[in-house]
């Protein structure tokens, strides 16, 4: 292999990678927070309301889960403004896409979490005279969260990896930074030698951190 390693350019432009990594984590975090609101609302609609509401939730979930994320990113960034007659930044558009996308996955997570809340617990709430709303807020939702924690951490990690797709609409996250260095300095292999551990170490660090939280709070069997 006739290749001379030269990391000088990588370190010179390292801020692009470091800032990119932080932006990736932020995009994933904002998206999962919005996705959790969407997911929780729709999971409750699905569990507590009639078949028409259920059908609408199913349409949302299936249509987002069965289409490539890349297509959704293009659709929201190029497609929607073309007919809506408005514009938004690439970051905003990506966060909208990833929130809707993670929402579709989290509906399923929260729905099975709500189903797994022991019936005896809800009956106990009834027995001590809690109203349906109080049972929801003080019994069902907190228990559901503790059951869903492992799936939530997995979703966050996979969203963190999905943020690499934001590079196609020029959001300056980690993969975009890598491509920029790649095209401007041609230190191709060095870039990958540096960003691969950045993705791996960050991903596994988050995983270990979240597993600690799970050990503290999670209940029920991991599926």
């Amino acid at each position, binding site marked *: *292999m*006739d*290749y001379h390693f030269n990391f000088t350019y990588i370190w010179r432009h390292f801020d692009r990678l470091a800032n990119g990594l932080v932006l990736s984590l932020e995009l994933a975090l904002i998206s999962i927070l919005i996705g959790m609101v969407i997911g929780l609302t729709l999971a409750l609609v699905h569990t507590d309301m009639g078949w028409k509401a259920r059908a609408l939730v199913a349409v949302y979930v*299936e*249509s987002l*889960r*069965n*289409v*490539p*994320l*890349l*297509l959704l990113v*293009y*659709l929201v960034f*190029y*497609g*929607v403004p*073309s*007919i809506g007659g408005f514009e938004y930044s690439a970051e905003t558009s990506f966060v909208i896409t990833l929130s809707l996308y993670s929402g579709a996955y989290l509906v399923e997570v929260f729905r099975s979490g709500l189903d797994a809340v022991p019936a005896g617990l809800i009956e106990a709430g009834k027995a001590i005279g809690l109203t349906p709303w109080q049972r929801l807020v003080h019994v069902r939702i907190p228990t559901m969260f503790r059951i869903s924690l492992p799936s939530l951490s997995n979703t966050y990690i996979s969203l963190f*990896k*999905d*943020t*690499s*797709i934001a*590079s*196609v609409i020029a959001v300056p996250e980690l*993969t975009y930074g*890598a*491509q920029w260095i*790649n095209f401007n300095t041609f230190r*191709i*292999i060095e870039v*990958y030698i540096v*960003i*691969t551990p950045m*993705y*791996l170490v960050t*991903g*596994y660090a988050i995983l270990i951190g979240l597993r600690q939280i799970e050990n503290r709070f999670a209940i029920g069997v991991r599926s």
Partner: protein
Amino acid sequence: MKAAFESLPFLVDGLLVTLQITAIVVLISLVIGVAMGVALTYGSAWIRWPVRIYSDFIRGIPVLVLIFFAYYGLPAMGLNLDSFTAAVVALTAFKISHVIETTRGAIQSIHHGQMEAAKAIGLPFWQRLFSVIFPQAVRRFLPPWINTVADAAKGSALVSLIGVVDLMLAMQKVIGRTFEPMPIYIAGAIIYFLINYSLSTTSRRMESRFSYIRE
């Protein structure tokens, strides 16, 4: 809307490339992934650790980075791949790691007494594997595996970014002519949806078909 219909033959060409890539990736990853999954479950430490490291390494990196690396990185190391091959190599490497985990999970779901019983009646290892473990494990393997096939079909859209004219890039090219993104994106979304939805429905149906074996 008219443009969407007129561009349909072009989209179909792209769809064929998407299906072709998906089929190649799924087949190769099935063979290698199952072999590595068996190695991970029954191999000695010398075999187990490299497989474990491979799987955790690949699953920790975004697929897009793998695709870019195969296309831009490997040529710098002296391995020139055209975009189609680079796409297939990257997606297969990624898919293998999922098949490894599915295989391991399916095998471990079989009670170890089965293996011991087969040993007790004097079957050699390969016969224990193919006649005793696999026929039982396949029910646990199929539903999640079909889901990864659906994932492969969706994930293949990323190959458009290194210039493979699959359904995704065919759509982009049509839009480059018509300047009307919405009809084409929706047409493409429907095509992807039909492929994936039929696969995930199959997976779900199979899961309920095999649910009687839950302990």
